[in-house]
């Protein structure tokens, strides 16, 4: 694999299971053991019911595009050669919203990835250690 120049995630002890699962091509997030709310953060406290205690839950990997944009400026040198590139917020069917990229678009324009579009996970092994969870049209 050629050298990967884009930023890699700063993984914490609390988030390690999420990234380990991504490497196995699974979308795993913490779920409150009391109210079953699924979290896009890696702390033991629930912001929906305010109880403490989470369990890991494998999700369906389906959702829809909730917001989108397309960068024409490289804030990270590793993205310079990818300009312009898209970023989307995908709302998962289980509720949480995650930041991601939409892949496999013929031209890469925003028109091809409208808000509301159904998407499914696309796991991209960017290094031997890290897999990023991206999405493509469902």
């Amino acid at each position: 694999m050629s050298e990967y120049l884009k930023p890699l995630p700063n993984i914490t002890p609390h988030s390690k299971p999420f990234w380990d699962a991504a490497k196995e091509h699974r979308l795993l997030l913490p779920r409150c053991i009391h109210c079953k709310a699924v979290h896009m953060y890696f702390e033991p406290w629930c912001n929906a019911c305010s109880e403490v205690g989470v369990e890991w839950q494998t999700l369906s990997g389906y959702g829809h595009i909730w917001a989108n944009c397309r960068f024409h400026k490289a804030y990270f040198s590793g993205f310079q050669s990818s300009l312009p590139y898209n970023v989307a917020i995908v709302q998962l069917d289980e509720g949480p919203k995650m930041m991601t990229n939409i892949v496999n678009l013929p031209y890469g324009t925003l028109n091809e990835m409208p808000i509301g579009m159904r998407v499914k996970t696309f796991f991209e092994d960017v290094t031997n250690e890290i897999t990023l969870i991206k999405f493509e049209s469902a």
Partner: protein
Amino acid sequence: MGLISNRKDTVAVIGVGTTDFGNLPEHDATSLGIWALRNAADDAGISLKDIDGLIVQRLTDYQKFIQITNISPRLVTATPGAGRMTGGTIQLAVQAVLSGLLDTVAVVYGNDGRSAGAKYGGKGDTYGTSADQLWFPYGMTSPGAIHAMAFQRHVAKYGTTNEQLAAISIAFRKHALLNPNAVMKKPITFDDYFQSKFICEPLRILDYCLINDGGVAMIITNGDRAKDFKKKPVYIKGIAQESRLAQGELPEDFGYSTMQRVSKQVHEMSGVAQPEIQSLMIYDNFTPTVIFTLEGFGYAPQGEGGAFVENGRLELGGALPTNTNGGHLSESYMQGWSLNVEAVRQVRGELEHRQVPNVNHVQYLQGGPLSTSIIYGSEPV
């Protein structure tokens, strides 16, 4: 004597000061703050020694600040250098005066972002919860990108257009041309707007605020004393804030419900109704914010903020002159502070070419994420 005594009922701004704006590499943020406070003290006709409370924002070296101004405040505190903190900083000063704790409070802001090479996005940027884990690997970063996304949602939901964003950018640039201290001095047209480069599509560079150096200061005292100074006092008749940070960087409703509650509170507090407001100062980090804020505070119906800004409504001579100094888009990026000073100067009636005629009430609006509004008026009640 208990903890609370000497309570006051009214608060006024008696002095405002600004520095030059632009590229000022010979000054750090602290010295820009000192420069601004000296101007504010001159404006009020007081000596720096009369200041008994100091709240600084963004500038970090309060030690140097106090040594060089040689003051002995009875309260010193500092707030973080983020525009969202501006309203809360003014709230603290207002409460310190109302409680009777302090007589003469200086709120001082210094920003050397241009000279210091401040970046709003990229490695080390703190915008976005867990951004270094959940945003950066996807190339996501910067407040501008979040506003691009928010605007896309507004477009999808309400049909808002880039032409409407252009109208905002052009209106504020026109105002900047009437302001000798504004950084941007060149007129812009619709063609200029649409030919300007995308930063984060659908937003272009002319949708983004500036990054520049400068300082701003305001001196606040109680309304009973306020008449004794050099300039006509401008009263802070209402000030209200509510956080929407719990909803994340991009709330589902563009911050509408939070702003509605802040709006209700500030109008009740001030006794000044919306039709009595003659000019608005809107925190304009990006053009879409202006639309969300006009809707949130009820000046435009929800979803109709785009149509509201067309046909020069926000321009001097229009129905609701807004950001008459040019705002963050074209005057200077003083993170709300210069807009508050502009509000005071409008109420005083001292703005010559950009003066709104016969002004009694001006409202400052900060959409979010710490939604804030302040109503300034020429009379205490």
